């Protein structure tokens, strides 16, 4: 078993890469089903911890697969799992952007751009709600979020200051 863990990691995560429509979050339940219930690479408790870590850490939360790969197959396992979840979908995106760049300025392309702008705007606004729902911390979360949005829109302050400020506010009022 041990010697083909690498192949198994690829076999699990490559298809998931191509199924992750709508973002990496979409396949989290499927990852859970396969690696905990199916392959038994990690325990339920480990999965829950990995999930929490990947959300807590900055960057894409799909990096949960790095942790799973590492726990299942060591350093190389972690690297392979990461490669498997990112590469296939990236190749697709690359193909799209190449075609797109070749037709710069075409009328259909302006239409696609203008037609997609409100779609993206709606998605950004919707993801604010999703993030607010998922965040722990009670009423302080929307309060701090709205305040930091307000500051960002009026001042040219680096968002990093706000991140630090948010942490301090939570410590002072809830710590």
């Amino acid at each position, binding site marked *: 078993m041990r010697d083909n863990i690498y192949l198994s990691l690829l076999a699990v995560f490559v298809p998931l890469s191509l199924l992750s429509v709508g973002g990496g979050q979409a396949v989290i339940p499927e990852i859970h089903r396969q690696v905990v219930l199916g392959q038994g690479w990690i325990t339920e408790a480990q999965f829950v911890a990995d999930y929490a870590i990947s959300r807590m850490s900055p960057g894409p939360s799909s990096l949960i697969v790095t942790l799973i790969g590492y726990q299942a197959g060591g350093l190389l396992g972690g690297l392979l799992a990461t490669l498997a979840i990112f590469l296939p979908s990236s190749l697709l995106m690359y193909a799209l952007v190449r075609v797109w760049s070749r037709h710069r300025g075409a009328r259909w392309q302006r239409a696609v751009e203008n037609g997609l*702008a409100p779609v993206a705007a709606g998605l950004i606004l919707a993801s604010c709600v999703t993030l607010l729902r998922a965040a722990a911390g009670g009423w302080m979360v929307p309060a701090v979020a709205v305040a930091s949005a307000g500051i*960002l*829109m009026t001042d040219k302050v680096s968002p990093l200051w706000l991140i630090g400020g948010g942490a301090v506010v939570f410590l002072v009022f809830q710590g």
Partner: protein
Amino acid sequence: MPEWSPPEPKPGPLALFLAFGRIGVTAFGGGLTGWIMQDMVRKRRWVGEEDFLAGLAMSQALPGVNVVNIAIWIGYRMGGLWSAVFAALGIILPPMAMVTLFSLIYEWLTRYSWSQRAIEGAVAASIGLMLSMGVKVGRRNLRRVVPAVVMAVIFVAVAILKLPIMLVVLVVAPISVALAYRRELRDA
């Protein structure tokens, strides 16, 4: 906001890697898209807002982690294959180191409630960044009826009805694009 024009000179692969890497290790709270937009559109002005939004919508409709797809989108524009590769690596590798680091200190982090609070606060502020971007692009789309309706439909379908994003985008986007095309023909 003044009209966007391409940066001169264009950033090379290394600059892209560093810029995306910086976003990757500082963007707490899951609102990476907001961070990328703030950094790439507002601060560095490497990509125009319309262009970014088109890339974002396509990233959502295709499989893959949205922010990696967006990095490829922006990177390719700046200089083809290698720029796309380095932009994508920038948003993957440094955060990979971070997630590993966090897994090492996870037990320590969860032992104390103050560290949890601090992270929750960082996440809340980070959602604010996303919110500011949403309000900014939202306002632009309120100027005309069709985009305003499209935006509202997407918002309700995803945020309130909680329908799958792919389904919503695949149904609404073609209609929105068709209407935009009709408008192009009419204006021509």
